[in-house]
């Protein structure tokens, strides 16, 4: 009897080990509360399908460095959640299953055209499925702007005028918080400034354009803003804390800031005092104009890799994450920051049934989501992908140029010259 039982148990165990599928999922949601939600979703998925998800959280700034390491070690994931740069880097190297990603978009049938465009592969198909998206802009103390009769910081003139007028370092208050580190955040902020001046680092023909008058002008404006900025080279958390701590009148930030501004318990994780009036006293400039208007945003995609041995399971996982309540549960881990890329979900009452989204209201959320259709980035030009840009982004050329400009007090011309040479070196020109 005992022998029979042992045989049965062993058979069950062995068959469970043989038939249980496991897929590896890389994601960039490293915060503890977000990881808890993702773990919960993975457990539900496993209970429903028997497929185990091996979750690997990776910092957004680190993901570009992890990819080549995983390529060499043969440990690439089955599915990756990442911004445009890592998805493009993987796609341009032939690692993404463009057909399967396209099939999923087609099966859904309601993914916004504007965000899908940013994941499109040049030779057909998609490098990834647009998963969620955010918009970047200037968040500002609207009450101070009203008191001083300053215009909303949407134009270069208004931004600089407000920064000068509100800068009061003697009392620990600054015009704005500006990133100056050699990282992705600095590139994101500079992108919007440069694009609003009609400047971009590289064009469709592969010409490097750092030393154009428009680009030099953009560096000059950035440096000028630096005079009225909170001292320091500034990381993303430092910028957020600075705004919440009432240390500056403006901050460049994505819509991820919305729950930090609105929800007491989220705000108190960052600063000691909760400011209940911060929501009504905060304005959002979601575009910028100098010679032309420009909006900046990021689409985070879910991509199934060519190297995956479990594509069927990977497809099920992607569809699971982007359907109904599972999708809403994911998006609500950062309300306002994570906006749906499927129109049917965006219109669901369950999606708007959230303390943060309610405070901002349906109109503002709809405005944010609609801005995704006009988002511009250095990697895209007139509907075409400029793949060389992912190499420049991966090496933080823009961030390093700005970092060196402030550290060495370089002129805008010197900065542009350095960036031009560095880009030429990296692209082998």
């Amino acid at each position, binding site marked *: 009897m005992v022998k029979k039982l042992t045989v049965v148990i062993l058979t069950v165990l062995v068959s469970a080990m043989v038939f249980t599928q496991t897929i590896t999922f890389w994601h960039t949601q490293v915060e503890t509360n977000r990881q808890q939600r993702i773990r919960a979703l993975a457990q539900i998925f496993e209970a429903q399908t028997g497929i185990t998800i091996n979750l690997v959280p990776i910092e957004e700034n680190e993901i*570009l*460095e992890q990819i*080549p390491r995983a390529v060499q070690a043969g440990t690439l994931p089955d599915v990756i959640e990442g911004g445009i740069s890592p998805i493009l880097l993987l796609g341009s190297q032939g690692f993404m299953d463009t057909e399967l990603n396209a099939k999923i978009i087609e099966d859904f049938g309601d993914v916004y055209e504007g965000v899908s465009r940013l994941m499109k592969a040049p030779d057909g198909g998609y490098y990834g499925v647009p998963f969620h998206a955010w918009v970047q802009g200037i968040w500002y103390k609207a009450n101070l702007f009203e008191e001083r009769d300053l215009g909303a910081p949407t134009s270069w003139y208004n931004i600089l005028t407000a920064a000068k007028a509100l800068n009061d370092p003697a009392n620990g208050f600054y015009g704005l918080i500006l990133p100056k580190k050699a990282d992705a955040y600095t590139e994101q902020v500079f992108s919007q400034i440069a694009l609003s001046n009609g400047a971009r680092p590289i064009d469709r023909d592969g010409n490097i354009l750092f030393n154009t008058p428009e680009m030099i002008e953009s560096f000059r404006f950035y440096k000028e803003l630096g005079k009225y900025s909170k001292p320091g*080279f500034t990381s993303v958390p430092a910028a957020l804390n600075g705004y919440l701590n009432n240390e500056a009148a403006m901050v460049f930030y994505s819509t991820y800031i919305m729950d930090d501004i609105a929800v007491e318990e989220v705000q108190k994780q960052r600063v000691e005092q909760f400011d209940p009036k911060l929501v009504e006293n905060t304005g959002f400039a979601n575009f910028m104009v100098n010679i032309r208007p420009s909006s900046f945003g990021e689409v985070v995609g879910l991509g199934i890799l060519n190297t995956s041995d479990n594509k069927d399971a990977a497809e099920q996982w992607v569809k699971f994450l982007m359907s109904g309540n599972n999708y809403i549960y994911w998006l609500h881990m950062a309300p306002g920051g994570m906006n749906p890329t499927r129109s049917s979900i965006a219109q669901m009452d369950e999606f708007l049934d959230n303390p943060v989204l309610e405070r901002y209201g349906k109109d503002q959320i709809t405005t944010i989501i609609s801005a995704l259709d006009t988002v511009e980035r250095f990697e895209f030009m007139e509907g075409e992908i400029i793949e060389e840009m992912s190499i420049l*982004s991966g*090496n*933080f050329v823009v961030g390093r140029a700005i*970092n060196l400009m402030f*550290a060495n007090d370089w002129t805008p011309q010197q900065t542009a010259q350095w960036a031009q040479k560095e880009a030429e070196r990296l692209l082998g020109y």
Partner: protein
Amino acid sequence: MQRFRELSPLRKKEAVFGWRLVSPAVILIGIFILYPVLYNIYLSFFQVSLTPGVPNKFVGFQNYRELLTDPTFWNSFGITMLFVLITVVGSILVGLGVALLMNKEFPGRGIVRALILFPYVAPVISTVFAWQYVLMPLNGPLTILLSNLGIMDVTQDLVNNPNNAFLVVSFYSIWKNFPFIYLMILSRLQSISQDYYEAADIDGANGWQKFHHITLPELYYVIGSLVLLRGIWNFYKFEEVYLLSKEARTLPIYLYEKAFTGLPELGVAAAIATVLFIVMMVLISIYVRKVLKW
């Protein structure tokens, strides 16, 4: 030395038995040390492909030519040599000074001796965060202290400034690693016979003379070994530098960026590793023969 075939049958058996005994170690060294080194040298002659299905392309010495004509490499090389010099000399001097102090009798010596080990035993990541905090612009306690002393401006961001980062990382490395030096020197100090000092007292030697003629010669080989060890470790030091400030731009950071950021150049990275290996081996052999005279 006799050839194997000239040995007596018993000696032959002994020799074979000896090889059997050492063979596990030889195989392990071969797999875990020799193979990676040789594979790295092999890779340095290729343009390594990341695209599935595309093979590596043989490029001869092109990676080496590219590397040796790259000013960024030489800049990083210079910074690394300076980093090694500052951190090794700094940590030896601090370690030696603290060891000499801790060799004296005073109340509570045991507790103080244990506390000194704190920087070395604390995890790198926690000490790195602490340093980033105390050196924060405007509000960092050390920043405020240094600005009150008139040494620097309170708005300076020392850690993230590419011009200062190298110095901050060097000071951090000295602080983090001097307890190891202190521990080694202290253990040697405690084994120096008191008879020497008593004889020197009889001869009327002062403190400096005793230190110069007794303590230092007794510490010669310990300090020599520590310089060698710390030199090798700091030449390849990655985690402390990378975590505290990526702006320090030492060679291991440069190697890492070549290998793992943007569109990686693994062949060039392998060439850097090979050059580092050769430079290190040459420096070590000169040092061991001329200074340590082993």
